[in-house]
């Protein structure tokens, strides 16, 4: 992995970003909107992958980090009248702080216990959103008006409800997080995270404080997932409790498994794939969830390491 020329790796990632940029100009309206959504949610998947793929910690509670960003940003706009940039930062900060607290508590456990503990915390978070319905809008959620989603830069308004602006904003966030994760997994820190996944005891005996490293990974993962949630609230103008439900804790796991855990581009591919399979099948049958399920089972049977993970194993060993 580390022997591959970094130039090839960076060229691939920049190429993917360039392709997504070009797609904005050729995609029909409907697909342009879908792609913006997929890119924003792929950020969620990338944040999840950092913890699950690279550190090997399987959380079933990441919906809480996504919705910490979603509500952190959304409520700041809705109740406090904050501008878009400040609200985005608030959302990310909420997610990072929550991840720090959850990490300190949940990292006392591992394996199945870690899954259950994270799931329970997420459930508490979900119930809190419903309980404080006066502020959060409860299960109805809140709609953030178009006027609140405009950034004024030197007199030129930057309207996040405009399809192209929205697409480019989602792409910008996606690109930054993609390049950040690439840098992290190629860094010394990334090497330690993988070592923890492979053998935590051995990693300790090489002088590493594995708990501190895992905590840093939880916080980074939580902050990235919150960035996705904050962007989602600001780009699509809706903040709802369904995003905090258990379904949104399982979705990023599926996206990452599909695309390939511990691959930098797998989360995008998994999110894209799942979105389109759902979208296409729901168009002609109401039993689309069944078809999605069958597609998932087939994929796991034939590509147990996910789409990109299998490609790496069979053909492109240098993929990060």
């Amino acid at each position, binding site marked *: *992995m*580390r*022997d591959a020329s970094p130039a090839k790796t960076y060229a691939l990632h920049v190429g993917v970003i360039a392709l997504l940029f070009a797609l904005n100009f050729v995609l029909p309206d409907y697909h342009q909107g879908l792609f913006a959504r997929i890119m924003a949610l792929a950020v969620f998947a990338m944040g999840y992958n950092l913890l699950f793929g690279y550190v090997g910690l399987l959380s079933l509670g990441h919906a809480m980090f996504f919705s910490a960003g979603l509500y952190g940003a959304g409520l700041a706009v809705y109740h406090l009248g904050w501008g878009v940039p400040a609200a985005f930062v608030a959302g990310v900060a909420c997610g990072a702080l929550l991840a720090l607290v959850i990490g300190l508590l949940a990292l006392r456990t591992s394996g199945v216990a870690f899954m259950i503990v994270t799931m329970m915390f997420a459930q508490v978070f979900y119930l809190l959103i419903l309980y404080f319905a006066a502020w959060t809008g409860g299960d109805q959620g809140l709609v953030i008006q178009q006027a609140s989603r405009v950034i004024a830069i030197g007199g030129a308004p930057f309207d996040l409800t405009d399809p192209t602006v929205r697409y480019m904003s989602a792409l910008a966030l996606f690109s930054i997080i993609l390049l950040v994760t690439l840098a992290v997994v190629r860094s*010394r820190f990334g*090497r*330690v995270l*993988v*070592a923890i996944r*492979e*053998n935590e*005891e*051995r*990693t*300790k*005996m*090489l*002088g*590493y*404080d*594995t708990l501190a490293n895992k905590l840093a990974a939880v916080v980074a993962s939580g902050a990235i997932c919150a960035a996705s949630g904050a962007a989602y609230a600001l780009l699509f103008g809706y903040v709802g409790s369904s995003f905090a439900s258990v379904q949104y804790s399982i979705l990023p796991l599926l996206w990452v498994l599909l695309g390939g855990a511990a691959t930098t581009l797998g989360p995008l591919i998994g999110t894209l794939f799942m979105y389109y399979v759902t979208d296409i099948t729901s168009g002609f049958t109401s039993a689309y969830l069944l078809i999605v399920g069958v597609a998932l089972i087939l994929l796991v049977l034939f590509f147990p390491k996910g789409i990109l993970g299998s490609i790496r194993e069979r053909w492109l060993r240098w993929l990060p």
Partner: protein
Amino acid sequence: MMPLLTTKGLSRHFGGLRAVDGVDFALMPGEIRAIIGPNGAGKTTFVSLLSGRIRPSSGMVVFDGADITAMPAYKRVRLGVAYTFQITSVFANLTAFDNVALPVQRTLTDGRTRGQVRSGVMAALERTGLADRAGTLAGQLSYGHQRLLEVAMGLALKPRLLILDEPTQGLADSEIDNFISLVREIARDATVLLIEHNMPVVMQLADRITVFNSGKILAEGTPEQIRANTQVQDAYLGATHG
């Protein structure tokens, strides 16, 4: 001269079993010390207490004048106590390069070495004769090479005390000769504590030998003294070579 490492009344019980039982032990800087003793004598448990991998039931460990009894293992490593496992535990899914990069970058982060990760890794791999295997997954190396990789990882930690738990187990005779010269070389800048069953290796390498039996030190001395010790012959040497 002050010992590099001492233990006082060091004990570890597993239920009713006294795996290590009130051991007083001292190790001088620069020496090569071998620990021998029958299976189940408590050798691995004893060195695990030194490395911090397991906690003592009672007693104390002093390294370089400081009480490290309560110090977690990863901090002891940063002080210079390196431990290589009896059961090979290299990172099978990582390349040999990445296996050694982990300890190298640790010493760089701690400011105990300078330079590039790559050059540090290649130096450790060259010293153990694994340089041409840098890109191979550790799990695909032969068993002997995995043992050597384990030593390379220990070396790369720039230890002041290197603890090797049965490092020659499973090595071919030709590999053992290389190993003996490697340990001699390591001992030029580190103290070596070596658990070893292969008596010719012990006799060639050790400055002093400590014999364990039933969690206690049965005898200690130079190789000649140990060879002449009748108690040791009864408990151990006689049993394996008789």
